[in-house]
């Protein structure tokens, strides 16, 4: 049977149309592949730089813990250890191990160890007073330039003037390495050190504690207020102009860029209320205002998902509206509310810009002990480290990012787990 004219036209165009169909699908796959490629590149770039950052090079030296020299007052007090000759003792051992003789050589050899070596020795002594007056193997961090040499960032082939280590220093490092003094281990400074300009000593402990304190303040403020607002708007609020304005406001606040909340904190909390800068209390309050819309919106969704039959049941057996809500609806909505809150907290944990503006970017060595002591937070620490030029800081920054991401994965994973575990399907 001969084909009709329409069928001929359609058949003729089919090949081209099928080709277009395949091309369209390919576009979709390509787009997803590209997005996933970005994700992999991002993670790969962070991991490849960050994993080496978890390790650093240490040197193990045999130190004679002469009590008279280390602890002249004999009471192991901070002052006494500070007055002692910890630095000199270490230097003597280093000079002996490197065999440095000339004036320049001795000067070069001294620079190979981290600036914080004497503090490390005194804290070692303080932790193990019974070892005084014996000879012990103590591990010290290498200076970041020496560390970079072992990592291969500083190369022997580079002309001497263009690298940060002199020929003689490299010679000493090689000698000590051949003697088996150098080891490559997990960096204890990264986890237990505080902010420092010396790359080899810098750590995230202070920032991590600051983050915890800030999030704590944020949670204590945002969760009750958010839940109360959601309950009020969803269950009790009369449908009038004020309620409408509140709802528009919440949606608008969710859209305001985070940096604006920083300005709010600066102008109101710091300049008007006279609260100190850089403290986790102010940071937490700013972040609380910022996460409030997220918590309110998700809490409202959670309340909405509780079926009306629950309310009707409670009302039917004689509960008041408030009792029905507080005793039945809210407890059933709590898992959903918590999920939303955790997601909001995760946002707050990663937020940087508003905290910069309330001064949490200050260089703070002390670890904050309470919410009113100056501190910084992990993302801000990352921001500050990212500005430092030393190669070792690049790796430490990436390590800090990995730790931050782990926290975020933990929180988001927790939220998903909570949702799966506790949320009921009606």
């Amino acid at each position, binding site marked *: 049977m001969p084909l009709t004219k329409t069928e001929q036209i359609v058949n003729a165009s089919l090949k081209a*149309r*099928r080709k*277009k*169909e395949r091309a*369209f*699908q390919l576009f*979709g*796959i*390509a*787009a*997803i592949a590209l*997005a996933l490629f*970005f*994700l992999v590149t*991002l993670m790969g*770039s*962070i991991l490849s730089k960050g994993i080496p950052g978890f390790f650093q090079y240490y040197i193990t030296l045999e130190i004679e813990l002469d009590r008279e020299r280390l602890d002249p007052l004999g009471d192991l007090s901070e002052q006494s250890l500070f007055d002692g000759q910890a630095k000199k003792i270490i230097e003597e051992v280093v000079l002996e191990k490197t065999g440095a003789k000339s004036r320049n050589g001795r000067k070069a050899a001294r620079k190979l160890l981290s600036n914080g070596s004497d503090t490390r020795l005194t804290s070692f002594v303080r932790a193990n007073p019974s070892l005084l007056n014996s000879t012990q193997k103590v591990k010290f961090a290498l200076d970041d330039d020496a560390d970079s040499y072992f990592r291969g960032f500083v190369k022997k082939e580079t002309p001497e003037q263009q690298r940060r280590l002199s020929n003689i220093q490299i010679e000493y490092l090689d000698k000590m390495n051949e003697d088996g003094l150098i080891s490559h281990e997990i960096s204890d400074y990264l986890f237990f050190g505080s902010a420092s300009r010396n790359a080899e000593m810098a750590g995230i402990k202070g920032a991590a504690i600051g983050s915890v304190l800030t999030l704590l303040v944020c949670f204590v403020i945002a969760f009750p207020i958010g839940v*109360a*607002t959601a309950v*009020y*708007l969803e269950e*009790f*609020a009369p449908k009038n102009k004020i309620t409408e*304005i*509140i709802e528009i*406001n919440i*949606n608008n*606040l969710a*859209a*305001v*860029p*985070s*940096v*604006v909340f*920083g*300005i*709010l904190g600066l*102008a*109101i909390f710091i300049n*008007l*209320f*006279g609260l100190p800068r850089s403290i986790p209390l102010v940071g937490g309050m700013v972040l609380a205002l910022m996460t409030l*819309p997220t918590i*309110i919106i998700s809490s409202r969704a959670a309340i909405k998902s509780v079926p009306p039959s629950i309310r009707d049941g409670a009302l039917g057996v004689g509960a*008041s*509206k*408030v009792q029905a809500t507080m005793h039945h609806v809210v407890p059933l909505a709590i898992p959903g509310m918590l999920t939303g809150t955790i997601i909001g907290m995760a946002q707050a944990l*990663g*937020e*940087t*810009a508003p905290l*910069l503006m309330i001064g949490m970017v200050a260089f703070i060595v002390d670890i904050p002990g309470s919410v009113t002591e100056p501190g910084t937070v992990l993302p801000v620490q*990352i*921001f500050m480290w*990212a500005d430092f030029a030393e190669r070792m800081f*690049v790796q430490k920054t990436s390590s800090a990012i990995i730790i*931050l*991401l782990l926290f*975020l994965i933990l929180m*988001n994973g927790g939220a998903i787990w909570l949702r799966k575990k506790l949320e009921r399907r009606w």
Partner: protein
Amino acid sequence: MLTIISVSVIFLGLLFYVVGTTKITRICDAAGIRPHSLFMYHGSFPAILAVAPPLVLLSLWVVADDIVFNMMLEARFPEGLEVEGRQTILILLAQIRNIAEGIIVGQPDDWIIGLADTLSNWRNTSDTIIAGITVGLSVICGLFGISRVKPEFRARNAVEALLLTGLGICSLIAIITTIGIVFSVIFESIRFFKLVPPLEFLTGTVWNPEFEGAARAGSGQEGMSAYGSIPLFVGTFLISIIALSVSVPVGLFSAIYLSEYASKRVRGTVKPLLEILAGVPTVVYGFFAALSVAPFFRETGGMFGLDVASESALAAGFVMGIMIIPFVSSLSDDVISAVPQSLRDAAFGLGSTKSEAIKKVVLPAALPGIVASIILAVSRAVGETMIVVMAAGLAANLSLNPLDAVTTVTAQIVTILVGDQEFESAKTLSAFALALTLIFITLVLNFFALQIVKKYREQYD
């Protein structure tokens, strides 16, 4: 002091709870009747009255006393003191506060030490007064509550009314925050516009706030600073355009594929993976842009003989684009999935291929939602801060060349307001004016997005 007052007020509350329940039990047992409400409510009513008003008063006092003290101290500054602007006053006040708290640096003037003594006296008096007032108020309110407790008293209704008032007040926080934002920005902006005419701010093509300090030091460069915000807005626009040209095609095609073609399993794996991109903190993207992407673009550009700035708009915009892919894809995915199946079936019935149905039927139907999602992505890009601070630099070039270094509104706000500021200077105030325009732009974008969604939402239902 604060803790002691709060703890004692809470303790008083517990006490009144016990007194309330005991009283109602006694009366009812004696008369052999049942009260209107549960015993718990008769106890809670005086307890809430005894705790809530004093604690509210206390927190207001804590906020207000420093403000009042500062004003009183300022009034007591010696005559003829040379004060250069607000900044010096604030430094003096901080010094007085520190001395009052026992932190003495250097050799302060006698009058400063005198004022510090006055301040600590005031503080002691203030602490005593507030302690008296709060505890007194707590007792009075609690006693009033107790006096109301009778078998016929509708305690449950009263407690519920108090609770609802509390909930209502919490919901006002959102409004207070908005008012706070508006006020903190508007006042400083008005002061800025007194120094710099709005027209110059909105139409000027040179942004150069850095000479303020130099002009003050008398270096002869008065008048060099310029506050034309056009370069900042052009920079913001340029970076947003670059970000969108990455995120819209990738996000949209991903959304189409995921909602129309992908199997359930693929969708279930890919969607959360894409959303990871939205969960990564912006400081991480900033680091990635500055350390990996920018050098990569620079080297690649160098191979083709292009001169790419080390802090180029391209790198910042590209990375920002990666960040907002999930915003575009999630929202578009939702609206595409919301298009009724009957529309697709009709297209298939007419003999169209799947892609033809999508292109000619599904996408036009979903277009308003897609446009809204793109607008939201724009507002996100305009407000994004850390990536531009870390990767786009601070050079306020008026340029549309993506290979140049540009700066954005948010980046300028952060740079100006981080660290110590000179309060009176136009430079500091300019950040507030920029913030005002930023808020305005994002709210307008949001408004349009919502309007589009609202207007076309129910067309196909």
